[in-house]
Every structure is written in C-alpha cells, then in structure tokens.
C-alpha cells in the first residue's frame, strides 16, 4: 500500500475538544452553580457570624457557649437529647415492625405491611398537626378520656419535648423499617440454618449472627434519623418547644439578632455536615449482604389460637394508630371553621373548604403560588440534576467526590439553615443573582426549593444511567449519531423513568415545603404550607386541613407513580 497522502489538519475546535482538560470546561458550570448556591451562602453566613460591628470577632461564639445565659447551650442539649431518644425509639419501632412483618405470618399482615409506610405520605407539618389534634392538650383523645372520667383537667396530653419525640418516632421509624426490612430480606436463611446445625441456640443465633448482620443497616439509619431530628423544626414549633437549635435560629432571626442566628446556623451546619461525612464514609465500608440470591425468607406462621387472636388484635390497633393521623385531618377538613372549640370532635360539617380551595381567590392563591414556585425549582433541578448525573456517570474527571458531596450538603442542612444562608447571601446584589436583591422577591423561594431538592433528580437519574449499558450509547455513535442526537434519542428515553421519578418527588416536596419558606416568604408569595400554618393560628382548622388533605393526596399519587416507574425501569434494563 502507498503511503497515506491526505493528512487532515485538526481544527482548533477539534484540538480543544480532544484535549485532556476539555472535560473540565464541560463540568465547570456545574461547579459554578454548586459554588454560587451552596458554598457561597454557607460562607456568607459564616462571615456574618464572625464579623461584628468592631470587625472580626468570636464574640457571638463565646456568647453561644457562655455559661451566663445558657439558652443556646440548653437548645443544643435539647436538640441532641431529642435526636438520641428519637433514634432509639425509631429503631425499636422500625426494627420490630420489620421483623414481625418479614418473619411472621399472621392475620392482617398484608394490610399492615402496606399501612406501615403511611407516615411517608405525611408532610412534616401535617404529621405534627395531626398529632396535636389527636393527642395534644385540646386533642380528641385527651378530651374523650376527660369526659369519660369526668375530670377537670385532661388526664393526659402530648406536649413539650416528649410530644416532639412521639411525632419524630411516628414520622421517622420508616427509615429503620425500610433498611431493616431490606437487610432481613437479604439475610440468607441458610446462614441461620448452618448456625443451627452447628448447635447454636436461638438466642445465640440472634446475638452472634442476626444482629451483627443488621448492624450496617442500623448504623446508617441511626445517622440519618439523628440528622433529620437535629434539623426538625415543625414538631418543636407545634409543641412549643422553643429551646431547640432550629427554633432558636428562627427566634434569633425574628428578634433581629442576625449575628447570633448566623452563629447558631453555622454550628448546626457543622454538626450536619459532619454527620453527612460520617455517613458517607460508613456507607463505603459496609457490605455483607447479597451473597446468595433467589432464596426468599421463610415466614414463621403464628399457630396457637391465643397468639392468633392476640396478633389479630394488635394488627387492628396498629392499623388504627397508623391511619388515625390521616383520618383526623380528613375529618377536620370537613368541619366548619371556628365551630370546634371544647367538644371532643367537631360538631358541624361542610364541603365548603374543598370548594373554596379551587374557587375562592384568596384560598386558591397559596396553592397556585406553590405550584408556580415548585415548577420553577424543579425545572432547575432537572437541568442541573441530569447534567450532573451524566457527568458523574460518563465523564472522567478529578473532583467527582467533591461534586457528589457538594450536591448532598444542602440535603443534610436543616431547612432553617438553608433559608438563613440564602438570606445572608442574597439580601444584597451579587453576581450569582445577576446583581439583584433576591430576598423579598418571588425568586428566593424557588431558589430555596432548588437547593433543598438538589440531590433528588440527580440521584434517580444517576441510578438509571448506571444501569444503562455504556455500549448502547456507543452503538448510536457508531451508527453516525452525534452526541446531541444520541443523548436526545437514546440516553434520555432510556433514563426517562429515573428522571421522572426524581422530578415528581422534587415537585411534591416543593409543594409541601414549610421550614425554609416560613423564613423567606412574603405576602404575595405565600406557599401552601405557610398558609396552613396561618389558618391554624386564625382557628380556621377546616381550611388548614383541606390544604393538608390536598398535599397528602398529591404525595400518595406521586408515590404510586414512582413505584410504577421503578418497576418499568427494572424491566427496561432486564437485558
């Protein structure tokens, strides 16, 4: 063969795109966004906490830890105390439920194993609200027993720190339940059988085999529940526990003590990020399960008649406890506003609140606001999430761990802190806000939602990208498709269910967002959750609960669709 004659001179563009560093140009917008809306606001809050009138000082930190006024230390202590107790009680409830439902067969098991996930359908505000309606000082049960026993005072009532802990247990045990169930399903029954055949007693098997195998799942959920409890704001608010970290931040802000609010936020941020890091490190190390596949757990059937009846009764009680929060919200949503005062349950009922939701301008506006703001946030989440997921899954660059961590940080930060950070960053014009003041405008709430939901679309898209075979994309390229075409026609359709699942989840979270909203909304941008809160204070329980029912309905719909999508995702990737 002759020596090749034509040699193509690569253009500047080709040379650029083939450079080893071109990938950094591609990922730089992602890092810019993370810097602008995650790092910079954190940094501004930190700055606010250390820069006083007289320049740099650690005064507010000294105040925080000072023993003269112990409000802050007390709040820190309370937050930690609540979180620890919440972890313990969630673990007990969650793991017990997981074992009963995975390992035993009893009447009512099927129903219970669906209902056990009900708390996931409750937005935090609605969960806390329903508990005050049911078990609070003027709640249905305390009043019922008061009239039954004919006493002057209610015989019992949920309040204060213990109220908060009960609500936490109810809303967060599902984290333990889900991981423990998964771990139990993964436990290979033959391991237990092997231990039995080696002569181990039941008790020994539990202590030496089952518990150690569950440890990774338990540690992961404990960290998670601890983090969420530390960040919890609604439950303390509803039960009037002012001495918790999040409440203190809220109070400092509303009292105008910005420096102290910044200090409290920074300290809480450090705790949260620390927990995030521990969680990630831990996740990278754990791994026992899944050694053998295809063996389903065997369920022990409850046999004796006595145990059968007992388990049936317990199932019914469990069902009632799980359903009551939703039932009470539905019940009150039909009650006439202002009529329910000292009676056990509301006496007058109406359909008016539901009609108002969609016809009365003032009632409809918060719904419309929430829809608008959540949509804007979700559009941002989709663009960022899909791009970041693609970069993480397909491109080769240094700084992947950094990117992953930066995306997870806003999720670990309490909503209150996210709001405080955004206020610190965007109450003055910055490059990142195109030289506008965002506080007080429409845009600050969608931005807050965008930041809080940063990981959602990213995670689900990343998961479906990882399941998709890389060579499918290469096949498209070899057939002549350029990158854009193959992304549009191949990558997006195949990963669509993942993108959609994350998007829907982000959308309903935006619709229900309360914690950050309460700090940064204004009258014209008031979202649904803040409206619920305000209606409560105006004793318009009916309207408040009608909003709540709407939120729960939306969440249930989204959960159902997501489950469907995940099913189709699995079958799509069978090959």
């Amino acid at each position, binding site marked *: *063969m*002759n020596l*090749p*004659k*034509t*040699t*193509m001179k*690569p253009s500047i563009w*080709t040379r650029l795109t*083939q450079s080893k560093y071109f990938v950094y140009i591609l990922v730089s917008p992602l890092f810019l966004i993370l810097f602008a809306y995650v790092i910079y606001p954190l940094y501004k809050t930190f700055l606010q906490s250390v820069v006083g009138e007289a320049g740099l000082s650690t005064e507010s930190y000294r105040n925080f830890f000072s023993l003269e006024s112990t409000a802050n230390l007390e709040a820190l202590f309370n937050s930690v105390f609540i979180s620890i107790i919440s972890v313990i009680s969630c673990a007990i409830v969650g793991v017990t439920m997981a074992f009963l439902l995975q390992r035993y067969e009893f009447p009512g098991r099927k129903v219970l194993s669906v209902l056990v996930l009900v708390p996931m359908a409750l937005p935090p505000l609605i969960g806390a609200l329903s508990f005050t309606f049911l078990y609070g000082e003027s709640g249905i049960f305390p009043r019922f027993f008061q009239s039954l026993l004919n006493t002057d005072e209610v015989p019992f009532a949920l309040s204060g720190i213990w109220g908060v802990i009960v609500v936490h247990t109810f809303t967060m045990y599902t984290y333990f339940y889900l991981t423990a169930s998964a771990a139990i399903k993964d436990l290979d029954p033959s391991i237990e059988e092997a231990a039995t055949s080696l002569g181990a007693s039941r008790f020994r098997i539990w202590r030496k085999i089952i518990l150690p195998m569950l440890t990774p799942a338990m540690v992961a959920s404990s960290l998670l529940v601890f983090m969420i409890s530390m960040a919890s704001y609604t439950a303390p608010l509803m039960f009037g526990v002012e001495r918790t970290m999040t409440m203190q931040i809220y109070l400092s802000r509303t009292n105008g003590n910005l420096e102290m609010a910044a200090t409290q936020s920074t300290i809480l941020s450090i705790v949260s990020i620390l927990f995030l890091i521990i969680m990630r490190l831990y996740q990278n190390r754990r791994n026992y399960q899944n050694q053998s596949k295809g063996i389903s757990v065997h369920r022990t059937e409850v046999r004796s008649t006595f145990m059968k009846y007992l388990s049936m009764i317990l199932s019914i009680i469990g069902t009632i406890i799980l359903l009551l929060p939703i039932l009470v919200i539905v019940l009150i949503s039909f009650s006439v506003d202002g009529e329910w005062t000292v009676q056990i349950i509301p006496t007058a009922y109406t359909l008016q609140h539901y009609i108002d939701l969609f016809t009365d301008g003032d009632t409809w506006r918060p719904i419309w606001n929430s829809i608008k703001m959540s949509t804007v946030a979700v559009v941002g989440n989709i663009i960022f999430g899909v791009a970041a997921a693609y970069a993480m899954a397909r491109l080769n660059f240094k700084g992947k761990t950094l990117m992953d961590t930066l995306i997870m940080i806003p999720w670990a930060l309490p909503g209150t802190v996210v709001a405080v950070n955004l206020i610190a960053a965007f109450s003055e014009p910055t490059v990142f806000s195109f030289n506008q003041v965002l506080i007080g405008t429409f845009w600050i709430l969608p931005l807050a939602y965008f930041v809080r939901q940063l990981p959602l679309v990213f995670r689900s898209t990343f998961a479906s990208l990882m399941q998709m*075979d890389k*060579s*499918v994309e*290469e*096949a*498209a*390229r*070899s*057939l*002549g*498709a*350029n990158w854009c*075409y193959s992304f549009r*026609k*191949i990558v997006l*359709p*195949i990963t669509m269910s993942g993108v959609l699942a994350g998007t829907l989840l982000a959308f309903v979270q935006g619709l229900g967002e309360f914690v950050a909203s309460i700090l940064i909304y204004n009258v014209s941008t008031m979202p649904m959750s803040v409206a619920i809160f305000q209606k409560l204070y105006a004793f318009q329980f009916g309207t408040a609960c009608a909003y709540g029912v709407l939120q729960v309905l939306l969440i249930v719909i989204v959960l159902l669709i997501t489950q469907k999508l995940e099913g189709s995702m699995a*079958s*799509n*990737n*069978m*090959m």
Partner: protein
Amino acid sequence: MKSVKLDHVYKMFGNAKGVEDINLDIQSGEFFTFLGPSGCGKTTTLRMIAGFYFPTRGKIYFDQQDVTTLQPNKRNIGMVFQNYALFPHMTVFENIAFGLQVRKRSNAAIKEKVNNVQKLVHLDGYGSRKITELSGGQQQRVALARALVIEPDILLLDEPLSNLDAKLREETRVEIKRLQVELGITTIYVTHDQHEAMAMSDRIVVMNKGKVQQIGTPQEIYNAPANTFVASFIGESNILQGVIKEINGNVVIVDLGEGVQLRGNKNNCGPNVQFTIGETVNLSIRPEMIVEGDGSNAISGEVQLVEFSGIMIKYLVKAGKNKINVMFVNKGINILERGEKITVHIPENGIYFLGKEW
C-alpha cells in the same frame, strides 16, 4: 469498501499499557480477525479503529484518509457489540432504522432498506417486536442488521458470538461469513476462540500482552507459527527443547537427551532461527503429525493418560524426561491403557523449528 491501516499505534491507559506498536494493513474486502487471550488488547485496538479511543501514539488510516482522531460518528463504520447494545426502548424496526434516520434518508427509502436487510438476516416480519421479546440469537441478528443497513465502509465485530449457546454459535458463524462474502465488506472480527478465527478469516493477527505476535492466513499461522506463543495458542503443540548436534545440508539433527535424537528439515522453520551446532533450539511437534509404530525419529515410552473423544484418541506419552501428546484418528484400533508401552515416530516434516521469543 475501505482498507484499514494502523501505523505504529500505541495506547496507554494512564501508566498501564493497553497495546504497543501495532502495525496492520487490512485489505479492502478482507475478513480480518484479531485473535488472542483475554486482556491482550483486541478490544482496545478495535475501539481505536471505531474511534471510541484515540491512540496515544501512531496513526490510523481508512484508505488514504487519516482518521486517527476523527469522531466515531464520522467514520461510517458498522459495529456489533459483544452484548449487542440494542436500544431497549425501540422496536426491531426502529433499532435498524436508527442509523438511516441519522443520515436523514426519506421514510420510503428507510422502509425499503430496513425491509431488505431484515430479509437478509432472516428477521422479516419481526419489525414491530420489542427487543425484549427476542431470543438471544435474534437480538444478535438485529445488531448485525443495524450495523449493515447503513452500508458501512468497515464492519467491526467484538466477540459477537460469545453470548450464544454452542449450536447457535455455529449457525450464526456461518451466517456472518455468508453475509460478509455476499456483501464483500471489509470486516474486522475480534475473538478469543481459535476455531472461530480459523474457520472464518482470510487473515488473522495473533496478539499477546498488547503486542502483535504474527499476522497471516489460518494455514500460515497453524503450519508456520512465528514463535512458541503462537505455536501453543493455536491448536495443540508439543514444544520440546534440544541441542543441535549436526547439520548436513538441509538435515538438522537435534539431541533431546537420554539418547533421543530427531532429524528435521532446516527449511521447516519459523523466523529468526539460528542453526549453530551446540546451541539449544525449540521444536514444535503437532500431536496429529505423530504416527504410531516404529520408523525414523522413533520414540518409545509409557502411556500416562488416555483421552477418548470419539473421532480421536489422545495419549500422553512419557519418554524419559519428555512428555509428548500424540493423537490418532479412531479407525477402530484397540485403545491402549495407562501404563502400557508405546512406540511412535515423527515424520521429518512434522518437526518444526521455532525462533527465540521476541
């Protein structure tokens, strides 16, 4: 159809070597196979030809055009992936039509071409099937049709048969060869299965550890292996070491020790063989070249292993320190048992001299 030329191509992965100094001249219309053990760099080389990797050093040409850093979508290649890489969200028709849609062909033309190629791979009537509703062999044919329909200049196949069961492999192998001959398309085929390579290829490149070992037709590679690696990787071979005792014109006598001497022909040798009296030399003897009974180059020993496979009888014969595999066609002869004595002899043309490793 285009020819493909690789000119001193290297690929490094960071500091790890992928392939080294690959030089290939693949003729237009040729069926050319990359053969070698796992990890030897076959896929890496193929992906450089496809454009999914760019060489660290060296050039790649299609005909006279330098395509070293051309994007894969600009190369007009058809590629069949090991796992087929079909688009799971599309039907059979949509999968096959994809490349034509990219090329903006009219709907009518697309329909006609897809129909034709579906016939070619015996998938007519399957157009509206989902990919998940196809068997492995059918998926394989969709992948092939999808690659062929764009009338590629070069067809690249990366172990296309490895996911099929034995029977289907055989069928599909014949099918691929038939299509290639019919269409006359330049084809580069990757496999680690030597039978596949021998049966299908015009020429084969044998690779090991990222380097080319030998390029040649199946006969050349089998009958005249370039080195010990090729001799033992392709087919079976007894590799024996001996010392050159005597050179008489073309006749070379090698001493294997323990009184065994073999006579070979000087011309029956690989490249780089030095014939110097007193030097060691490697001999390659194919088991099927060995004949039962006494004769010149006779060796006597004891049967250590017997393997009966129907057509063939294989013995492992221990003769002093040497162990030799021999193979006889089963013509109803009675089969020896372990421990029995046997005498065999090696015809002169069954002794092949191997060069030093390079």
